[in-house]
């Protein structure tokens, strides 16, 4: 290795539509043939732009290309980070594209503690285990079950286009991506399941780089914020998983609750109350959407938050962490004062959760010291991987990306958004940062 410390970092944000895929290449020397080490942070998508979208296999090939030493030789990916289990972050690890990534023989797979197979529940006793790691992971499984059932029921909703579309999108994102999860688990290398404050294992892979894990907090840590609410949430998801009953299949709704009871047709109701049935159908769609939205947030909050310190530069990759995850690092952790000081110096910010309204907490944003309304070398750079019109709605001020946030990013940072990649010939944004 020409240098013991990186001299620069290249960050590629690939156009995956609604999803995340970032390749960080740490260059150890600027001369031709100097070694580079590569870390892939997430590889998933739940919606591609119609014209500029490359397939996941094509993107995997581009990643392989980027990981090939300049003078030729065997391509090598040094580490894979899967911030959390949402499809828009890990779907690419399944199928052929996943095989290509696995073929790059990473030395390390880094995931949040919630993905640790040892934390997987062997028995489903959610109440007893509510405050335990197993109980929490069982809850994530319950959420997948809810999504599966909701998706099946969406197919049967009548005349509710907008609600159905949103349900379909969120439901799919929250399905258990077994194929991708298995590929990640089966990679024959070191696996680290990290939580706030632990070592990420990336230091060994990336000499001269310090990586701090700022989230997710463990259950014990988050108890400092959530107090006695854990039990309620565990109970809620366990019952909800069973409440949303699987339909009979083939697009048919579930069988009646009381098969032996006499049924009636809506014509049997008095004229003045027939409006009530379609109203209840519509309400059902809204209720399902409400549940799936809560579920989506809970999953996002299992996201890894990583702060890379490379030379004098600080790069922040918070996955989809929303405020509930961030709260521990920002306010409750014993060393939150120190963390705040570090965050103030961030040079590159991967915008949380595709630019949604509550994944760039105001407290965090206000900390960033390098925001500036004028362009210049020391200005904060922001990386946004997103696609409008997939998530949330402008009617409720929940659109992703949130317009107000994008305006602030454009005004006070140098913004690199994948939305600007509108041709297949532009597969990614590439930013090189001397460190």
């Amino acid at each position, binding site marked *: 290795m020409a240098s013991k410390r990186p001299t620069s970092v290249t960050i590629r944000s690939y156009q995956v539509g609604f999803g995340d895929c970032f390749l960080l290449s740490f260059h150890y020397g600027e001369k031709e043939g100097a070694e580079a080490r590569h870390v892939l942070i997430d590889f998933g998508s739940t919606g591609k732009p119609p014209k500029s979208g490359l397939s996941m296999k094509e993107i995997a090939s581009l990643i392989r290309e980027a990981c090939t030493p300049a003078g030729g030789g065997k391509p090598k990916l040094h580490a894979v980070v899967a911030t959390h289990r949402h499809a828009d972050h890990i779907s690419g690890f399944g199928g052929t594209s996943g095989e290509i990534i696995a073929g790059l023989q990473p030395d390390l797979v880094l995931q949040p503690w919630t993905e640790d197979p040892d934390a997987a529940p062997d028995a489903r006793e959610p109440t007893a285990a509510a405050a335990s790691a197993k109980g929490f992971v069982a809850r994530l499984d319950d959420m997948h079950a809810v999504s599966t059932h909701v998706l099946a029921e969406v197919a049967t909703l009548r005349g509710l286009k907008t609600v159905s579309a949103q349900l379909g999108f969120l439901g799919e994102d929250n399905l258990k991506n077994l194929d991708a999860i298995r590929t990640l688990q089966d990679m024959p290398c070191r696996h680290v399941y990290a939580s706030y404050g632990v070592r990420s294992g990336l230091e060994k892979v990336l000499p001269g780089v310090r990586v701090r894990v700022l989230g997710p907090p463990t259950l014990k840590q988050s108890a400092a914020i959530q107090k006695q609410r854990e039990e*309620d949430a565990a109970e809620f998801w366990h*019952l909800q998983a069973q409440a949303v009953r699987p339909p009979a299949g083939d697009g048919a709704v579930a069988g009646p*609750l009381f098969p032996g009871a*006499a049924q009636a047709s*809506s014509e049997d109701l008095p004229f003045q109350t027939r409006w*009530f049935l379609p109203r209840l159908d519509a309400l059902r769609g809204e209720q399902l959407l*409400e549940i799936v939205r809560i579920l989506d947030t809970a999953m996002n909050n299992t996201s890894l938050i990583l702060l890379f310190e490379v030379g004098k530069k600080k790069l922040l990759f918070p996955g989809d962490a929303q405020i509930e995850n961030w709260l521990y690092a920002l306010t409750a952790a014993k060393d939150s004062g120190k963390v705040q000081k570090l965050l103030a110096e961030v040079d590159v910010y991967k915008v949380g959760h595709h630019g949604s309204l509550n994944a*760039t907490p105001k407290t965090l944003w206000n900390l960033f010291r390098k925001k500036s309304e004028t362009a210049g070398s020391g200005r904060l750079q922001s990386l946004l991987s997103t696609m409008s019109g997939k998530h949330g709605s402008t009617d409720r001020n929940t659109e992703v990306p949130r317009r107000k946030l994008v305006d602030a990013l454009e005004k006070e940072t140098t913004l690199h958004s994948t939305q600007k990649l509108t041709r297949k010939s532009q597969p990614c944004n590439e930013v090189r940062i001397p460190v």
Partner: protein
Amino acid sequence: MPQASNHPRTRRMTIVAQDPAITDETGAILTTEVEIPAERLAPGPCGYRVHVIDYDSSTRTLYEPAVLDGTGGAPLFVKPSNDEIREDPRFHAQNVYAIVMRILGRFEFALGRRVSWDFQSHQIKVAPHAFADANAFYSERDEALLFGYFPGRGGKPVFACLSHDVVAHETTHALVDGLRGRFTDPSSPDQAGFHEGFSDVVALLSVFALRDVVKAVLDRSLAGGSRRGAAPDGLVHEKFLTPEALRQSVLLGLAKQMGEEMSAVRGQALRRSVKLQPEDIQADPEAFREPHRRGEILVAAMLNAFVEVWTTRLESLGRIQKKYFDRERIAEEAAAAADYLLTMSIRALDYTPPVHLEFGDFLSALLTADHEIRPDDSKYRYRDSLRRSFARFSIAPASQGGAEEGIWLPSQGDVNYECVHFDSMTRDRDEVFRFIWENRQGLGLFEGAYTRVETLRPCLRIAPDGFALRETVIECTQLLELQASELAKLRIRKPDGMSEDTPVRLQGGITLIFDERGGMKLAISNQLAGTPETEERQSRRLQDLWDFGHFNKGASLNRRFSVQHRLRAMGSPRQIQEEW
């Protein structure tokens, strides 16, 4: 000459006493009979105020409307078996119908008049199996009470419609909305917490007002302990009957049993309310600004007062043997105390200001409502207990009181009755408006605001001794719409970060109570602006609303009861201040 009617005024109907988790010693689900207004029911059942429509939106199944009147008008289910209770949708229809009618009947009895829903229709729709979801809520938009179902621990379905307190809770939301439509408007954390807290209070007191439930909970919570040991049959040792012992055994016992099946619907809120101590609030005051936690304070204050009154009643009852009380009478006294506090609580709604309710206003309303009809409190000291209990939770009455501490002061100053006719004032809103207009300065109304007489309600209330109190209750509200930049003119502070052109609505209002001779007894006001105190309160409210995101687009959707209940069950408050 018309003949006296043989048609009975009331009828009895069997309901599940609390929920199917509460059984008697033989394992039979505890049921009880409740008295509700008699009426000629159509299939559904469909009556003059309630229409049960058994449609399941998850399976798109409409069940045949239940015909509850058997031969001779007898109810369909008198002594239902466990299987019928769990598996016959017609019994579920009977159960929800009877509980909704019972709560409606309690409101109408307490208020001394008919109570309307907050929508055009006279009949609220009730769907006992609305969806497969651990939720139940009142939806004003759909004119309905909706109850979900979900699998329980044993795999058998749990039905929200079979839980007395859940049905009573949702019905109370609908009734309070009909009585004080503005209480769902954005205001203070107190008002946001009031709907949930008050609905819990009514639900719990209406369950405690059933002797059978109290007996079962008392037996279950004392069984296995030392109760049976030395106590003669049917007696309970006095050491189990101190306020603290009853809080631990009966209140917590019931909260736990209710939690066994239904915690997914209501979370652990009831258990938390029962356990809540004033020190908990002092330790984390910020957490108790959140509406659900705020509501728990109201429930805690009311339940502690209930236990205190209950023990006071037991003391005056006397012991059967040295140190022992009769179990039957213990349950009866609990039921009587709960029933009385329930009446007081409902009646208090008439004595609240129409907008911007805070818990101190509700306490003054409670004390006044009772003082008006029963001036002498020396027997069971209900009002003393309430004052003490609320004080423990740092809730002071909004009024300092005159004849008695904490009650609203009688209206003072010159009131101009010229040009108005009292007879018309009991039925004509325009006549009332004329009275208000003539007296607008004395009543502290804000000149130039949109002013409206919302409701006009003559009532006839009956005291425990049979004494009748006639009153007319009038609700008048004021509304001012302006831009944030104009707040300074009213000496109201603009919240930090609010832009100058943000549209702001300010509300004020006054409740007037007239006696039977046409004199104005009480003017209970939350003024819109004009005094330093009002300006300070409005400034504080605006800041709170800004902090909690009520000025955000779509915020009204998050105020719906369905969302509120879900958040309550989940226990996950939003961090609005951190959002974009």
